[in-house]
């Protein structure tokens, strides 16, 4: 191997100012307004009168170096090499004149990139690693995202909705993607307790921290095996013990699946941020395209489009019509699993007789 360069430590990331488009650098902090021009383009206008046009394309988030180089080539040809990525993993290109937008768009489309995601639409789905790269995944994330977006891509590229609909996928309840405040989110769930590998618990795990990891105190010492035991009726299949102790695997090919939660948001527009709430407790993993999951999402979206007023997010629409009406509109079965029995249960009970008949 050739000689390696001298390593540096604790230098932090490169300063962002090295990467800013000159128009962005010049008008930093002096922007006046912006307008969405098309589902994939917008313009920001500065107090100076300068304009920066942003063109946005979809990304599967898992990117090969080959694809990143293609992004770079387009950025070099049209944008002076400048590009950025959004918090939802889209790619954004910048040009400083309206006349430069069309040639950029043409090249992006010629390469097969999908423009869109801006305005009252479905943007890219925030998601986690899934079976592609995670040990605790109860479902795949990238595959679910691909299957869903193939069905809903028109809401990325063209069609409008009452407001933005933010989708997210987390492949287990650890929720690296923090999907718990999304308009529609999927979360991989287990339905069975972890299996204890006594020999490896003894050899590889710290028993006290394994016991302490359980939120329902279902795990206790097992002196006979120098391992642990689980009170099965207390286990809620969160998998936290498996995160602490690898000798307690919880993955179950038949019983793992996907739950759907809806109605969350993070912005304060009109109403405060809200958590997403459970609407479908479990759908079996049915790769590669999870048809029952995509069908359920389409049911939710259809009801939202039919029922929401302009500017209402999914959660605001449901808050207005009532959750009992949501179940009626979507036809989802309301089950025992929908009623909270955990930390925040009591605040979810209806302490008034003012529900609607459904």
């Amino acid at each position, binding site marked *: 191997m050739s000689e390696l360069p001298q390593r540096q430590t604790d230098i932090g990331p490169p300063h962002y100012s090295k990467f800013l488009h000159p128009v962005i650098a010049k008008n930093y902090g002096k922007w006046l307004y912006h307008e969405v021009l098309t589902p994939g383009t917008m313009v920001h206008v500065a107090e100076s009168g300068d304009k920066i046009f942003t063109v946005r394309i979809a990304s599967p988030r898992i990117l090969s170096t080959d694809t990143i180089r293609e992004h770079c080539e387009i950025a070099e040809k049209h944008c002076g090499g400048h590009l950025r990525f959004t918090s939802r993993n889209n790619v954004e290109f910048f040009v400083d004149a309206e006349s430069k937008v069309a040639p950029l768009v043409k090249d992006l489309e010629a390469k097969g990139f999908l423009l869109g995601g801006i305005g009252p639409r479905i943007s890219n789905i925030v998601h986690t690693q899934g079976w592609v790269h995670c040990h605790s995944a109860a479902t795949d994330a990238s595959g679910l995202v691909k299957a869903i977006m193939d069905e809903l891509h028109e809401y990325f590229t063209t069609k409008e909705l009452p407001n933005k609909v933010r989708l997210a996928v987390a492949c287990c309840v650890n929720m690296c993607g923090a999907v718990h405040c999304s308009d529609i989110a999927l979360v991989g769930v287990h339905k069975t307790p972890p299996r204890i590998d006594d020999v490896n618990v003894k050899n590889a795990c710290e028993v006290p*921290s394994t016991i302490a990891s359980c939120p329902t105190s279902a795990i206790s010492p097992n002196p006979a095996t120098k391992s642990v035991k689980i009170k099965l009726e207390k286990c809620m299949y969160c998998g936290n013990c498996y995160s602490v102790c690898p000798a307690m695997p919880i993955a179950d090919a038949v019983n793992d699946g996907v739950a759907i939660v809806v109605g969350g948001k993070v912005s304060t527009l009109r109403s405060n941020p809200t958590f997403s709430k459970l609407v479908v407790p479990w759908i079996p993993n049915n790769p590669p395209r999870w048809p029952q999951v995509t069908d359920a999402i389409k049911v939710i979206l259809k009801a939202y489009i039919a029922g929401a007023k302009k500017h209402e997010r999914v959660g605001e629409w449901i808050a207005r019509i009532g959750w009992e009406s949501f179940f009626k509109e979507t036809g989802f079965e309301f089950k025992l699993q929908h009623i909270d029995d955990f930390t925040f249960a009591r605040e979810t009970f209806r302490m008034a007789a003012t529900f609607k008949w459904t």
Partner: protein
Amino acid sequence: MSKKKYDSPLLDELEKGVFPSFVTEIKRAAAHSDMANDLIGHTELCYKERVTHWKHGGIVGVRGYGGGVIGRYSDVPDKFPGVAHFHTVRLNSPSGFYYNATVLKELCDLWDKYGSGLTNVHGSTGDLVFLGTRTEQLEPFFAETSSRGWDLGGSGSALRTPSCCVGKSRCEWANIDTMAITNDITQHYQDEMHRPAFPYKFKFKAAGCPVDCIASIARADMSIIGTWKGDIRINQAEVLNYSKTMDIKAEIIDMCPTGCMQFDGKALKIDNSNCNRCMHCIAKMTKALRPGTEQGATLLLGSKAPIVTGALMSWVIVPFIKMEPPYEEFYDLIDKIWEWWDENGKNRERIGELIERLSFPRFLKEVGLEPSPAMVKWPRRDPFFFWSEEDIQR
């Protein structure tokens, strides 16, 4: 290279359809990487058996660092030797996720040399994620990248890579310089990021306004959210222009959560003392309305995903702070919060959970923050409150 070609009928199905495919990405990398090639076979097996085949991460990393690399091993290494080790390297992204082609291509070349050729741009926390390499490649990749000005991000019980929205770089709503703040925090706390010494992870996210494009309120232990005092700036001529194409009463006035706006067809009036700065009107009439000019941030603390005792959103601990360099007041507060967390937190207990366990009043008292009605939705309804010794007559 001696490459085994895998049949992947299930994954191939995910190359069909309109949306960009992760399978296509893996296959592109597989054309020049044995690791990516074996990832196809490995992932196909996961799809076929409907279960993950990754083992728990082992402890791997680079010299002098306690994080930034996530160990990952296949549980079927004999079948797929290319992914026997498939570690992740997290590089700290620049604030705002801005790059140029030169540096990205350079990183791509390095990753093709030392890793699988696969990335996540970005990971959930905001790192530039390099997906899949062997233990012996970690030091060389770190030497090559760090010598070019890059550093590792956070992992484990440490400060995680702070991230932010575009802020003042390309948004007229930014009340704080999110990118400058994020970069400053990152540089200020390099040791806390690279050498895990916390009870558990700690995340900062900075949003320029309450629209919160970075989802800080849901995903950051400390959410720094830009806000303002005083009057929303109105351009009445632009309001009139909007009135030609928009039903201002239905879409703006009636949707204002505090009912603080009036429009008589000629001029828009806002009772700013009743505005809660939700951003709806500003976001819908971008040319007509702008946030006020006395700008700063609200600090909120505690959000996290459901593991273990339920999801939390951050809640207000400092109603208003200027957030200007050198951020002394901010860093003083962070140091106090971390000290309190370090003293009281259990292993794997996030700051939000600790406050829930020990109580919010105790947190405020012990880190020295004054209580404010801005911190609660309503005062307590039960009569079981504590007093201090100084409140009692003896």
